[in-house]
């Protein structure tokens, strides 16, 4: 407005904010399928190296997507004794077992009030397609307690559409607490040995306290049971990225 003689200095705009894009920095997180990590033991690492080469060969031909225990998958297998020669099964992954080429995963679904579980081998040539309909994690690594839970928690629509997902999002953890059928169960899930967080126990207090009698709090501090996989994982990740680029 007026002349700026003797007035405070010219208005300096504030410095522009520096945007640090954490997402590009987070690309370091890559998923390593658990069957690549060799188990603790005295076998020659050559055996695991050869198995990994075969696994990589199979992955080059057939895409095995990333999935966790608790995600809903649809698997089509080749079956000579099925009409149209192929078979599609939709279910929630309850557990992933086995290492190397014998890695398996169990899918569970309830069809017509009958609970069905199928154990598939990841690297079997009979599998024609694996589709992840819903990618999510649950509070536990092992959802075998779904067998003793109310059947509504294991029912999934066979014609379910895949849930869309952005690539850079974190994998959602479903903090669902499952309600159980009345006891007896196939295993005593309230005991601390199973360490289950995903059940809403409606048992009386004295039963929960009595179950804590079997707790072994020294187990987590046992140094002979430690198996640090970080260095092994780094090596395997490098190997994988080199081989898959070829």
């Amino acid at each position, binding site marked *: 407005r007026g002349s700026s003689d003797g007035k405070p200095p010219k208005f300096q705009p504030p410095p522009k904010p520096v945007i640090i894009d954490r997402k590009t920095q987070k690309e370091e997180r890559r998923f390593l399928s658990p069957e690549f990590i060799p188990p603790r033991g005295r076998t020659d690492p050559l055996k695991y190296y050869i198995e990994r080469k075969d696994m990589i060969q199979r992955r080059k031909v057939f895409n095995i997507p990333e999935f966790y225990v608790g995600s809903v998958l649809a698997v089509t297998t080749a079956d000579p*004794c099925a009409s149209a020669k192929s078979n599609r099964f939709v279910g929630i992954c309850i557990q992933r077992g086995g290492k190397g080429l014998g890695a398996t995963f169990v899918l569970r679904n309830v069809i017509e*009030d009958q609970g069905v579980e*199928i154990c598939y*081998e990841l690297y079997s040539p009979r599998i024609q397609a694996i589709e992840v309909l819903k990618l999510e994690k649950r509070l536990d690594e092992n959802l075998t307690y779904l067998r003793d839970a109310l059947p509504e928690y294991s029912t999934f629509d066979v014609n379910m559409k895949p849930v869309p997902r952005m690539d850079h999002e974190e994998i959602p953890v479903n903090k669902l607490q499952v309600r159980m059928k009345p006891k007896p169960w196939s295993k005593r899930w309230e005991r601390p040995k199973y360490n289950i967080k995903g059940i809403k126990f409606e048992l009386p207090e004295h039963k929960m306290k009595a179950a804590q009698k079997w707790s072994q709090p020294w187990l987590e501090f046992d140094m002979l049971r430690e198996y640090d996989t970080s260095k092994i994982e780094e090596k395997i990740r490098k190997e994988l990225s080199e081989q898959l680029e070829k």
Partner: protein
Amino acid sequence: SITGACGAIQKLTRVRVVDNSTLGNTPYHRPPKCIHVYNKTGVGKVGDKILLAIKGEKKKALIVGHKMPGPTMTPRFDSNNVVLIEDNGNPIGTRIKTPIPHTLRRREGEFSKVLAIARNFV
């Protein structure tokens, strides 16, 4: 159920009849039990014939699913399922709603009539 056994079907296992026959679906104070397995070993797997004691009568039946985990890629059911059958292999019921494993299709010759009344295959 009282025992949560995870074995295949043998003598004295309680089974669940899955078809819509009257003999299988009318309630009785005792569950249907297996009394003999037509097998070299006394253990019945999917596709084996067994003798059932239902409502005070003896009836043959075909195993269509059990709780015991089998070979990989085959389904494992949450209950021991059985379909009532005559001596010549004709099923007594007219419809089977529960899913049946595809492995039974391999033996089309013996079980063609049972497979014809089945609705869902797993």
